[in-house]
């Protein structure tokens, strides 16, 4: 099909043509960036986390006397293990995504201290006896803690535990000792040092950055005895089959409240913790989806409105073309091609704009660079929407009878 007549006609309707191009360009730019933001959030929400999330519940117990932890904790755990359906129970200092973070800087050289620039901030998890099994940590190399490790560890004056063993995540091991065997190496924070006895699959930190942050899995696990925990162990973790989970939330909470009259027990499933952590992110993602859908609808209606107006203006021309032999298909094709040309102009401009917006957002809001394929994907989406919205007006144009040409007005 010859497109020269289309250009000639567009030149005579510069303003409406420009408006369609502009509308498509803006929609394309906003769409690409919004979809990218949605994908970032969805990826965050689904970050893997190598603990048994589906079968785990947590009961926080506050307000007990830390001096009595040595006898209270074993008693509480024995009671929890006695509940029907419980496979493992332990007490830990915090859980992934619980927002309760204990961070500390560690280095790989003996004189590294907390504030050194080359020391790496690591989230510390203190696990009471059996904590590695209760969380369901997946061992990759080395070994997990044994009873001796748990019994030997305690807190003194420092917030660092008095022990010499540690488990690290694979991500942390790879960053601290790239390309080397981590088991047997030592983590330092003057004057404390810890030997890595095992590497476990990646567990998230209690507080994470955005999805691309390389530090999301920088976590280390330390054993901790109940008697020496100084109140640091207050999160009881109970593992069961997923079917027993919701019943156990209530039963475990009740059990701990009964056993500790002065304390306050609060139970929830791990999935609730995860949902709670990402609640904002998922509502932001839904809002973005809503904006995209409404924006595309508005764009489509705009194209329908302008093209309809156009068709009405050119009823006579269409009639003449039909009268001199153009088929309905020709007329349809004319409007579709015209829309395709305008959309092409729009998406080219839109892709440039989308890229610019992304660069600005990267600069201002620490956003990641948008992968290139978002641009053509957005372009194709706008092309399709353009073609879909022009269909109605084009059909109406094709329905113009040739006889219109012979009428005046």
């Amino acid at each position: 099909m010859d497109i020269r007549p289309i250009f000639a006609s567009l030149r005579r309707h510069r303003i409406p043509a420009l408006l369609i191009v502009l509308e498509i360009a803006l929609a394309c730019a906003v769409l690409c960036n919004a979809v990218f933001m949605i994908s970032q959030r969805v990826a965050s929400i689904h970050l893997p986390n190598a603990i048994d999330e589906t079968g785990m519940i947590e009961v926080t117990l506050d307000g007990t006397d830390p001096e009595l932890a040595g006898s209270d904790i074993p008693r509480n755990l024995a009671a929890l293990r006695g509940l029907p359906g419980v496979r493992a129970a332990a007490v830990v200092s915090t859980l992934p995504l619980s927002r309760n973070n204990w961070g500390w800087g560690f280095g790989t050289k003996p004189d590294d201290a907390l504030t050194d620039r080359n020391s790496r901030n690591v989230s510390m998890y203190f696990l009471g006896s059996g904590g590695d099994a209760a969380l369901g940590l997946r061992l990759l190399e080395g070994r997990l803690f044994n009873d001796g490790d748990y019994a030997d560890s305690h807190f003194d004056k420092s917030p660092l535990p008095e022990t010499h063993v540690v488990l690290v995540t694979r991500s942390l091991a790879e960053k601290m000792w790239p390309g080397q065997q981590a088991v047997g190496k030592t983590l330092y924070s003057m004057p404390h040092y810890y030997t890595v006895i095992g590497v476990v699959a990646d567990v998230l930190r209690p507080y994470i950055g955005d999805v691309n942050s390389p530090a999301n899995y920088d976590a280390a696990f330390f054993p901790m005895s109940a008697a020496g925990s100084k109140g640091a162990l207050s999160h009881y973790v109970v593992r069961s089959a997923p079917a027993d989970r919701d019943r156990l939330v209530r039963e475990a909470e009740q059990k701990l409240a009964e056993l500790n009259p002065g304390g306050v027990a609060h139970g929830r499933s791990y999935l609730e913790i995860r949902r709670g952590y990402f609640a904002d992110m998922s509502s932001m993602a839904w809002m973005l989806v809503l904006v995209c859908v409404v924006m595309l609808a508005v764009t489509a209606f705009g194209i329908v409105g302008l093209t309809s107006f156009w068709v009405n203006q050119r009823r006579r021309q269409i009639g003449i073309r039909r009268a001199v032999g153009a088929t309905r298909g020709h007329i349809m094709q004319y409007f579709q091609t015209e829309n395709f040309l305008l959309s092409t102009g729009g998406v080219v401009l839109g892709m440039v704009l989308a890229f610019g917006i992304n660069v600005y957002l990267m600069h201002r809001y620490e956003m990641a660079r948008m992968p290139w394929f978002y641009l053509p994907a957005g372009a194709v989406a706008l092309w399709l929407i353009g073609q879909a919205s022009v269909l109605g007006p084009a059909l109406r144009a094709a329905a113009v009878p040739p006889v219109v040409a012979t009428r005046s007005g």
Partner: protein
Amino acid sequence: MFQYYLDLAWRSLRRNKVLTALMVLAIALGIGASITTLTVLHVLSGDPLPGRSAEIYYPQIDPQDLRGMSPSKEPPSQLTLIDGMNLLRAARADRQALMKGGEVPIQPEQSTLDPFYVNARYTTADFFPMFGTPFLFGHAWNSADDEAKARQVVISSDLNQKLFGGANSVGRTLRISGTAFQIVGVLDHWQPNPHFYDLNTGSYAYSEQVFLPLQTMIDLHLSQDGSNDCWGNGGGGTDTVLPADTCVWLQFWVQLKTPAEAAAYKQFLVHYSEEQRTLGRFQRPPNVRLRNLMQWLDYNGVVPDDVRLQTWLAFGFLVVCLVNTVGLMLAKFMRRAAELGVRRALGASRRALLVQLLIEAGVVGLVGGFGGALLALGGLWLVRQRSSDYAVLAHLDPSMLLMTFLLALGATLLAGLLPAWRACQIAPALQLKSN
């Protein structure tokens, strides 16, 4: 004339209902989305102490050792206990308060109530007059009570309601963490947003139920919450163990009534740092900051990035809607070329036509603004269903409502300008001829 144009506009809009509805809908959607996000931004970046915030300052000094020092680095965002007490007792500002957050168990006398935990603020006496907290009953303690480690407490109206049914509880006893405290004051509802004086507790919709003297907390080893940064071999600060001398963990606020006083106070901070350095306590050269309240909030980036991004996005969306409206209006006005030609031929000036068409656009804008306000109310309701700490604050206030209509009207008039101008360029004779 205005009324006549209004009448014309109304007739014209009713003649083509679909096109009008599309324009109104586009404006309403764009305005609704922008106003929703703008309201959230407006609420979050508000002034927590209107009329007073310019006099409230947050001093920072740098007591760290030489490890990891670089000249451009900001000083720590809190104080050590020693420095806090020194600055407090120096009393160089009009008012000053040193504070920390925490959580304490309340053990009610009534057997019907189980013990429960509440948020606590441990602070020195000036907190109340400096921040202008409203009292329902009683009053604050004074600085002599601070030094005497008095067992005195100020409680919130919520806690007073829960424990005493809202009656005047001043003089009564409250058991906190096993110690008997005397209630000296009951605050009226007071919840500054953001929770500016300690941002570690979460920035929005956070408030304390009990306020007690800082030194009493230290004496009784009550449990502290919030941030605690140490250097060197510093440690402690786990639950009831006090942080070491090489840890910053206290917030310090001062009130300085004039800029001259503020400049003098900054000088004082430099002198203090130098003095501590000659004493051997500080190792770094003086590195001080004195930000006022709003600067402090800005420095800490309290408004979440997501909220700003949403606002940008909403405005992008509004622009798409407006371009769309320009297109639709162009279609609408050009279709009326014949009518406009007749008016021109009968003697209406181009200017008159322009005014007429813009009034038509304005009517669309007002109706769209009305729809936009309704959508914004719905949008804010959705925001309030979210779990973030600021969600409960998202309400449309009168100024934002006015803003909705102004924005709608302004945006539509702007959008109408090009189509109206284009439509006025009609040559009257041509239009008459073709009919």
